[in-house]
């Protein structure tokens, strides 16, 4: 389901702390890669003629998978392209990303999926998958050709940014999707509650006089879609959750055996709506930043596995679109290059989340949801590895970002934990 470069490189990563909790590994080891595949894990391995990467003092983990990226291609290549977006992803430690279909035109036609996959083979720095729309034009009315889109290589379906408002349409989509074996991912927003909303409907928005986007606007749709998943027996993935009520619904649904999964984004996991007091449009996201209690619920959900994936919701916007007032600016921030460091700095270092859990939620968690092979550090597995310098720090600077857009909420901030090297599908994609 992924398209993009595959390598057959020969590398020995020497003397790093190797962590893959799912494989039961946490030790100082060498990892030898032959022809792009992990061939041997052990101490003091022969290097043969291989390139040697000195990993002493560093940490080698399964590379990350981002299930929620806006590549703006086709249509807004001034904001991001397959090349710049995947370069940014590689720099963030990702070995695979999944692109959203709300492009111009919308990815709702098998020909578009095939064309994008062909372009990815030559333009991408790492493998990527393309979502297709649930409904034609993401209009929420007629089903897109889910079967043909899956046959063309669509990795899953979503109307991200445009929730499927009609329950009847959503139910049909879930029922029919049984033939594709792909996952439907939903942007949960009840738009009659969120119209005119630019920020969490709480004390900060009240004080600033910014229109409110209430938690209920999300959680009502979360509850509906969990009930629809239960009713149809099909799986649903809930994207970029932001509210405590949504996490509670998800936890109850999972406990009841419904096939429902959830993701959370770094900005919601790190920030609260306090951050919007500056009215800086780089803190405007959809769904919006919420209260400290909501943030705590997201972190707890991520920790206990209720939320099984971190998703950046990387949303590039042109400079001129964000150089305006908070209310006039579009929703969304870039996140691929800062996700790991932000979460390491805001969650792992303060002791809110174990490092192993963060790695798992950024790697195996999202892969499993979409039926992808999880990146793993085991003999025989394709080399999808990220080398981290956990004692290093760096400052986020617009002129150093590889993404074509610089609308980051972290500009000027110093973050701890640095990605030194990314190997994606047996090929060094970033160093």
């Amino acid at each position: 389901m992924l398209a993009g470069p595959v390598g057959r490189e020969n590398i020995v990563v020497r003397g790093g702390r190797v962590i893959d909790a799912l494989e039961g590994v946490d030790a100082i080891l060498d990892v030898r890669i032959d022809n792009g595949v992990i061939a041997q894990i052990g101490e003091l391995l022969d290097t043969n003629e291989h390139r040697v990467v000195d990993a002493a003092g560093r940490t080698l983990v399964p590379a990350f998978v981002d299930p929620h990226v806006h590549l703006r291609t086709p249509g807004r290549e001034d904001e991001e392209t397959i090349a710049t977006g995947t370069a940014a992803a590689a720099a963030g430690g990702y070995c695979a990303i999944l692109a959203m279909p709300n492009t111009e035109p919308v990815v709702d036609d098998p020909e578009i999926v095939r064309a994008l996959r062909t372009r990815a083979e030559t333009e991408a720095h790492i493998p990527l998958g393309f979502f297709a729309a649930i409904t034609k034009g993401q209009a929420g009315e007629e089903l897109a050709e889910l079967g043909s889109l899956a046959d063309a290589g669509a990795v899953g379906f979503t109307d991200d940014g445009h929730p499927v408002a009609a329950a009847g349409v959503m139910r049909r989509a879930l029922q029919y999707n049984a033939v594709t074996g792909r996952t439907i991912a939903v942007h949960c927003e009840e738009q009659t509650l969120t119209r005119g909303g630019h920020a969490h409907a709480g004390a900060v928005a009240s004080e600033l006089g910014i229109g409110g986007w209430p938690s209920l606007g999300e959680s009502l749709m979360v509850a509906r879609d969990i009930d629809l998943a239960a009713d149809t027996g099909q799986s649903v993935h809930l994207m970029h959750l932001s509210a405590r009520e949504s996490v509670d619904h998800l936890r109850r649904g999972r406990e009841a055996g419904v096939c429902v999964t959830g993701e959370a984004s770094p900005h919601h996991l790190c920030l609260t709506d306090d951050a919007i007091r500056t009215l800086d449009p780089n803190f405007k996201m959809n769904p919006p930043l919420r209260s400290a209690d909501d943030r705590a619920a997201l972190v707890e959900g991520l920790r206990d596995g209720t939320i099984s994936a971190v998703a950046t919701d990387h949303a590039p916007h042109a400079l001129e679109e964000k150089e305006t007032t908070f209310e006039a600016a579009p929703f969304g921030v870039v996140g691929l290059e800062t996700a790991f460091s932000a979460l390491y700095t805001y969650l792992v270092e303060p002791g809110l989340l174990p490092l192993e859990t963060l790695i798992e939620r950024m790697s195996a968690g999202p892969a499993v949801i979409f039926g992808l092979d999880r990146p793993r550090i085991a003999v025989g597995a394709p080399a999808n590895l990220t080398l981290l310098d956990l004692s290093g720090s760096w400052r986020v600077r617009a002129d150093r970002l590889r993404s074509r857009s610089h609308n980051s909420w972290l500009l000027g901030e110093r973050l701890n934990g640095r990605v030194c090297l990314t190997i994606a599908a047996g090929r060094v994609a970033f160093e």
Partner: protein
Amino acid sequence: MSDLRVVPGDLVPPRGERRHLLSVADLTRDDVERLLATARSFSVSQERETKKLPTLRGRLVINLFYESSTRTSSSFELAAKRLSADTLNVKSAGSSVDKGESLKDTTLTLSSYDPDVIVVRHPEAGAANVVAANTRARVVNAGDGKHQHPTQALLDLYTLRETFGRLDGLHVAIVGDVAHSRVARSLVQALELVGSDAILVGPPTLVPTGLAPVSHDIASIADADVIYVLRMQKERMLPGASFVPSLGEYTARWGITPERVAAGQRVMHPGPMNRGVELDPRVADSPASLITDQVRAGLVVRMAVLYDLLTAGPVAVEAAVGVA
């Protein structure tokens, strides 16, 4: 006359940094005292036959208005003229804004004329901050979306001081569409800054929580010193959003009628009012009404704000008044 209670040390504005007036949150209690004292000085000058002062001669004040306005735009223009500044009024209708020019570019364009002050009104929160980030001029926020309207809050404080002789310990009932009101947000902060307090009264759909105590019962205005009536801002309501069933029902429950005003209570309104909707004309035209005092205060307070941002403080005011 009221007690100004200003010590000289309070009257010196901060030096060095370029200052703006973007939000009531930018003001300290000392700033408020200094501005009100300056406004008081100007009110004396406005009682003379020759009302114009030479203080800001050669300075340029640009009024950049993206929303319709009568009293704010006219009072800023008149305030600048009474201080002998040049004024340039730019309205979004008929300007390059109609052609899609961004706020940033309009600011850069107007800044090429080296204005000393840009006064900006805009329908979006934070617009004055965007202007301030793109100009070397001082910026005065004359209303940004539902966010802030700091000169309105200052003129309201001036009116309260002139009426009650004090600013602290006053209890103000703000009645009506608080949700869509930058006036209410600025006033609640300003009252807190000077040691008074507010209660917000109105329909549950139009009164947000978290700003000040809230009541949905009009009877709760009974113990207020001041009833501050807000306009029902129909133009801010999105199509199809029904905040109240009808204006008639609003008036019946929350309209300020003579029966609802107790003896000794004073009534304020930032304008423009919908007579007969939020405020009964018999109240608006009664001696309890401070509405025209507010408009007069608007002129001298805006003179004080322009003066304060561009000069060294009230010592010069005395000199300026003397010259005139």
